């Protein structure tokens, strides 16, 4: 109870949050003003708790301590992910998307906001099972370079990977997840054969432009952290980055209903928010 009560001591207001957003933008050039405020407030409060900082100290560190901004930006993004999260979604990708992808000689996929890479490896496994991996290339991008390092290593806790196996089984796989990693002590290392056609690289959905043309883009549980204006901007970026008849896959609570260019997409799977660019 004592520990719980001290937690409440860290409290910032939305007004104070705007002050922090200004410092980050004006001093460091990073624009986080499109992030949803309540979620951002929780992340900033969490940073203050972890480092035992009050508002003045936080601002002082942001202004004066070299490197703190990097840490701050890493910590304000949410990096919770898992392999084969929403197995039903992956089943839908196999049935609704892969037959189209199979018609291309080269398949380019982009996992935007890939965090520590679990989703990228999940896609890679499905592509392998479908016999499409050799002609596929997956770009995994995130703003956060720290999580990308972890993604590149492809080493995950064995306990978690065992949980992911249960997700994987629900996708009606032909193989077992254990065929794709090597277990050692408490860690599971993704096999190099699965890493061949994957590139993890930094990309900011807020400030960077289209960098390639893709047959499939997945961006799941990222848009929820953006306000409607930034959502619109990012969806424009995805539109520009998709080839004609390319697929866009969003998270289970993210849709195109409020997107101005929704008419340029066909709903392929309403429940799992899978769309195809048609216009």
């Amino acid at each position, binding site marked *: *109870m004592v520990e*719980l009560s001290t*937690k409440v001591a860290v409290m910032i207001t939305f007004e104070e949050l705007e002050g922090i957003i200004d410092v980050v933008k004006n001093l460091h050039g990073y624009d986080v003003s499109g992030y*949803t405020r309540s979620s951002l407030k*929780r992340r900033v409060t969490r940073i203050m708790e972890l480092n035992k900082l009050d508002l003045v100290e936080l601002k002082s560190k942001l202004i004066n301590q070299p490197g703190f901004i990097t840490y701050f930006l890493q910590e304000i993004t949410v990096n919770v992910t898992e392999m084969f999260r929403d197995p039903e979604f992956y089943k839908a990708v196999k049935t609704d998307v892969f037959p189209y992808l199979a018609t291309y000689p080269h398949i380019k996929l982009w996992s935007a906001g890939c965090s520590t890479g679990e989703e990228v490896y999940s896609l890679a496994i499905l592509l392998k099972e479908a016999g499409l991996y050799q002609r596929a290339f997956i770009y995994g991008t995130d703003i956060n370079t720290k999580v990308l390092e972890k993604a590149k290593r492809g080493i995950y806790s064995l306990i978690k990977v065992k949980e992911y196996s249960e997700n994987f089984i629900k996708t009606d796989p032909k193989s077992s997840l254990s065929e794709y990693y090597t277990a050692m002590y408490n860690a599971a290392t993704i096999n190099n054969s699965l890493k061949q056609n994957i590139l993890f690289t930094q990309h900011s959905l807020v400030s960077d432009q289209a960098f390639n043309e893709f047959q499939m883009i997945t961006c799941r*549980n990222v848009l929820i952290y953006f306000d409607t204006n930034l959502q619109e901007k990012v969806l424009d970026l995805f539109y520009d980055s998709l080839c004609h008849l390319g697929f866009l896959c969003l998270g*289970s609570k993210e849709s195109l209903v409020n997107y101005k260019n929704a008419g340029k997409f066909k709903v392929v799977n309403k429940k799992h928010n899978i769309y195809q660019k048609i216009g």
Partner: protein
Amino acid sequence: MERKILLLGGSAGGFSVILNIIKALERPIQRPIIVIVHRNPKYASSIEDTLSKALLQKVKTADDKETIEDGTIYFAPAGYHLLIEPDYSFSLDISEPVQYSRPSIDVTFESAAEVYKENCAAILFSGANHDGAQGLLMIKKYGGKTYVQDPLDAEVPIMPQSAIDLNAQDKILSIAEIKDYIIQLT
């Protein structure tokens, strides 16, 4: 007109109490109600649809970036935290569970506290963990009204009791008193 809100949070033993109270509403409630209960995402229920048909008011799962409207009962979606933005809209968040829970009652309560200040009322029901107590305290600090189900009345008293331990409540209410309180809001 000032926007008001009523938040109902509960877990084990609390869900059925909240449902019974909502089902018993004879007239629509003017202010929006947000229900945060711990539900297993693997067994996503269609309770919103069932209630919507049974009641004279709209009952739905809260959507990301949806504007909160009067006369509507919103349920937090399973598997996501439900937050309230300063512009009176929802946003969803899939960050780490809080008190082993996602949706977490604390998260929604805490985010509503500053947005609605003294126009926020919250009731914490029966449950088997400490979720909700901190959030209730935050609502109280921002001038909102805070109530807990009497632990003696509760199927699992841990949740309301942990709020009482923090002195987060304005009042401890029996189920009958909670019903009366909500009905006078219609």
